[in-house]
């Protein structure tokens, strides 16, 4: 998971930085200058095209990215609204163990219906049940909710810290830059997953007791999610900061920064109005690609038994539970695996699409 981040490091000679900052190398062959205004031409009704609008237009033409965006929106809606709709669509079931129970009970992700173990999809359980008779679809939707919440939480921290530290380090240099450099050195030598394993492994039981009182996320064995998120954010923000730092250094060298200083703008204003808006595209791309890492990271931790605990659900936990019986019930391991793969691929494709949209030249 470390490697994914590398691919967008500006330090690498392979990757072209934000186009909008670049002078076209070969004007003679540069034919795609979007409609330069000819001097002879009088004022015409034509909307000004901002670089952002231009990028979004390119993104809309990218089928793969748009399908991915659709998949992501669908998964988000599924995880948020899915359980309520799903529980309304089922009738009363007469359980041999529990008597008559409504769908709001047996279609929850934690209800164990031992009369229905290891079943394939049916009208009652749309995606079948697991070895404890729990509804796989319900668990899947809960797992998605976990993945997406962790992703959002981690990215918020990641972007905030990354921009804050990265811009300060890049713009002012000095001790912040030194600290950041040392920090990223250590993180590169300390494989992210290993660190997260240590943190969650060592503080997991503590989190179970202390953090389970936190509202919303606390109950249902999800207490460790906060810990997992914190751990994921802790290893991802220095990389974001390094990326931002590199980009800031590049923007800082642009003449428009010097021009702003000549125009009497203070450092704060230059950072706020010139540096940060120009970081927008690279941060959005990096964050989108990083969501994939975060989701994989959370799933990996749960897979290793250090994340979400029973009776909670997570895609990683589902895979881990089902993989013991992969030779007898492959269906149970396929469902969460494929869902996870689709979710992660969607974010990767969207990230790739965003990168191309912001910088059409990378697409060769």
């Amino acid at each position: 998971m470390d490697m994914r981040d590398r691919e967008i490091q500006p330090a690498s000679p392979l990757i072209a930085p934000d186009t909008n900052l670049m002078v076209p190398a070969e004007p003679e062959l540069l034919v795609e200058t979007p409609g330069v205004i000819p001097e002879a031409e009088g004022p015409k009704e034509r909307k000004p095209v901002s670089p952002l609008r231009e990028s979004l237009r390119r993104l809309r033409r990218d089928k793969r990215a748009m399908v991915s965006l659709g998949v992501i929106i669908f998964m988000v809606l599924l995880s948020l609204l899915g359980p309520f709709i799903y529980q309304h669509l089922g009738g009363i079931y007469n359980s041999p163990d529990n008597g008559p129970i409504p769908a709001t009970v047996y279609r929850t992700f934690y209800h164990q219906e031992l009369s229905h173990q290891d079943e394939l999809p049916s009208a009652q359980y749309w995606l079948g049940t697991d070895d404890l008779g729990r509804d796989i679809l319900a668990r899947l939707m809960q797992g998605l909710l976990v993945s997406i919440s962790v992703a959002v939480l981690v990215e918020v921290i990641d972007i905030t810290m990354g921009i804050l530290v990265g811009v300060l380090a890049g713009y002012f240099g000095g001790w912040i830059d030194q600290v950041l450099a040392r920090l990223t050195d250590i993180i590169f030598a300390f494989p992210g997953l290993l660190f997260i394993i240590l943190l969650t492994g060592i503080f997991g039981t503590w989190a179970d007791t202390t953090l389970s009182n936190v509202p919303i996320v606390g109950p249902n064995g999800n207490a460790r999610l906060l810990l997992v998120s914190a751990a994921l954010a802790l290893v991802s923000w220095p990389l974001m900061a390094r990326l931002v730092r590199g980009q800031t250094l590049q923007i800082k060298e642009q003449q428009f920064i010097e021009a702003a200083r000549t125009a009497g703008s203070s450092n704060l204003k230059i950072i706020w109005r010139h540096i940060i808006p120009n970081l927008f595209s690279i941060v959005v791309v990096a964050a989108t690609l990083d969501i994939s890492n975060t989701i994989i990271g959370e799933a990996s931790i749960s897979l290793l038994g250090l994340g979400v605990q029973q009776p909670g659900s997570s895609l990683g936990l589902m895979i881990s539970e089902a993989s013991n019986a992969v030779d007898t019930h492959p269906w149970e391991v396929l469902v969460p695996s494929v869902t996870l793969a689709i979710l992660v691929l969607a974010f990767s494709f969207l990230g790739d699409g965003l990168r191309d949209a912001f910088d059409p030249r990378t697409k060769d």
Partner: protein
Amino acid sequence: MPENLLEVNNLKTYFFTRGGVVKAVDDVSFTMRSGEALGVVGESGCGKSVTALSIIRLIASPPGKIVGGEILFNGENILEKNNEEMTELRGSKISMIFQDPMTSLNPVFTIGYQIAETVKRHRKGISNDQAWQRAIEMLDLVRIPDARRRAKSYPHEFSGGMRQRVMIAIALACNPQLLIADEPTTALDVTIQAQILELMKGLAKEFGTALMLITHDLGVVAGTCEDVIVMYAGHIVESAPVRQIFQTPAHPYTIGLLQSIPRLDEKRGTRLTPIPGQPPDLSREIIGCPYASRCPRVQPRCRQERPELKPVGRGEQLAACFYPS
């Protein structure tokens, strides 16, 4: 032996891009004699580099493609040659040097190797040692001091001017008949430019090589070339011996160019006469003369018909204008 070393007839090189077809070179014809020094002048985007790359058949394809015309080199049409025959020709009969000496040499090979490689490629049966000796000889010729030792250096150990000398050494190593120099001094300082031009001129004479010098700098042409071609928007607008171009320019664009650049020997207080507007977008269809929108002498006819390159009555001078001066 044919009369002309090079004869370009109705050359058309287009670029097929998402934004449309860019007619970078559109119906260009000219000739070069053996040993002649020809200057091709024009602003960026006028098609001068594309013309040169078409002659040596190094147009990046896609998006570029030579869609029409013929290029006769020693009477043979280059456009009909296959790839293998073309590689035989490149570097031995036709050589080319490029604008940016900083990036034109491969950073991981020594200077000597890069010269010797060309020699090895084109001289059948030459030994590695002999090729290396030739490399050192060439480095001496382009006046790189201590050539024997410097041959083992890598490009990054050389300055821009020195690297351009190495490029000249590579280009001339096999005694080519034609040397195409695409803005060879644009990236260099004036004092270095003077060194390089002097060297190139001298060596071309010595080797009997015809020189095609592509530049945007009219001054460079004036001191180096015998004949001049002026290009604009993919067309040749004027061609003439160097003295005529500067003394009696016929095309309004040539006149405009001459009046818009400050001269070192001008009297103070003179004012420049700029050419208004900017060159046309080549991805759009141009009807009539491409210079019509900027021309001070424009007539209705110029906007409808495209003028052909015709003699303007002063010997070898040709201009593509209905109303030449």
